[in-house]
């Protein structure tokens, strides 16, 4: 098919049709379809005579126009309902498409105008170097008040003073002692939980107890079960477990 080159005068079949409607000075909502179809086809023939290729869309529209024309020639059946009559006008869909296209064609004219205007306004010629993109903070302190700042500071200072130095932990409670203690606590128990073992203890003692429990597990004396992160640790003395199963 040779229908590859677009018509340079018209943007498409809608454009051509709108032009014909304008030239005939007829109402877009009441197009004399027979006359317009005739002119539309005449235009396409004239292009063919000049050996200009016609794109497929123009031919599709030609077919549409002929179909509408023939439908309008058919005798109208008496309408059963007054409201139905108008929607059965075979031109309706085409007219709606034309109205829609016309709107955007006018919008395009507006854009062309604005473009011409804006093109006459020149921006600054020189370019400045781009700077690094550290963000700009609109409210750098947020809702923070001076009183909050003070109390945060006081809390930090008292926390940092309260916490005993790390080296005193190991010197007061030895791992061996704690290991023996945990064995004692588990004796005769079918199971225990870690929190039962450390009920009254300080953070330092909890750490040593935890190490002792890990050591017992490594030695195969107990089994540890924890079903979720930071959850309770169940301690099962292994010898006992075997006895129960037997």
């Amino acid at each position, binding site marked *: 098919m040779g229908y590859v080159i677009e018509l340079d005068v018209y943007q498409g079949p809608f454009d051509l049709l709108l032009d014909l409607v304008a030239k005939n000075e007829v109402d877009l909502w009441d197009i004399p379809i027979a006359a317009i179809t005739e002119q539309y086809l005449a235009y396409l023939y004239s292009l063919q005579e000049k050996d200009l290729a016609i794109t497929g869309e123009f031919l599709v529209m030609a077919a549409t126009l002929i179909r509408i024309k023939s439908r309008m020639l058919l005798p109208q059946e008496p309408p059963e309902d007054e409201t139905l009559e108008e929607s059965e006008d075979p031109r309706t869909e085409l007219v709606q498409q034309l109205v829609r296209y016309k709107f*955007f064609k*006018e*919008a395009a004219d507006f854009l062309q105008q*604005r473009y011409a*205007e804006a093109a006459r306004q020149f921006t600054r*010629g020189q370019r400045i170097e781009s700077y690094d993109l550290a963000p700009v903070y609109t409210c750098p302190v947020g809702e923070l008040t001076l009183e909050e700042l003070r109390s945060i500071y006081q809390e930090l200072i008292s926390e940092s003073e309260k916490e005993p130095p790390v080296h005193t932990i190991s010197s007061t409670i030895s791992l061996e002692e704690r290991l023996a203690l945990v064995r004692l606590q588990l004796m005769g128990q079918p199971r225990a939980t870690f929190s039962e073992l450390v009920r009254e203890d300080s953070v330092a003692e909890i750490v040593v107890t935890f190490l002792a429990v890990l050591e017992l597990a490594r030695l195969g004396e107990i089994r540890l079960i924890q079903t979720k992160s930071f959850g309770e640790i169940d301690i099962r003395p292994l010898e006992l477990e075997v006895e129960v199963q037997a």
Partner: protein
Amino acid sequence: MKLSDARVVIEGLIFASEAPVSAQEIAAITELDVSVVESLVEEIREQHAQGALMIRNVGGGYQMVTKPGLAPWIEKLGRPVVSAPLSAASTETLAIIAYQQPVTKAEIEQIRGVRSDSAINNLLDRELICELGRKAGPGRPILYGVTEKFFEHFGLRSTDELPLKGITEWK
């Protein structure tokens, strides 16, 4: 910061900004209220009433440009023409995208009644439109919308400035 100083800072920011700079951005940088920024921009405009420069509202920001009447002289500087004028096909396509964004190629072609691939590619090349994502549904077609550059090129504040934006009864 005194308001007279603020006015000078704002003038400098609008001059120096690569892209149009919004009242909000200026407010963030200067730590002033947006309404104060806006009224200072008006003062700067008055200051430049007799000069060569003006501040235009474009794409949600301010931009300093020469007044249109000076175009004939400035063109003699040999500044490259911003770009060749848009074809009618591209302008139609652009108008549809500006009004209907986000919109697919099929929707554009339905309105124009002709294939619009080359117009779309042309507009993408000029960075006047961009892909906004994909539409849900069969084929997941690309959705197009207009860019910041579109507003700048056409000297528009926003799509609200397009004429008769309300006319959508045929939609």
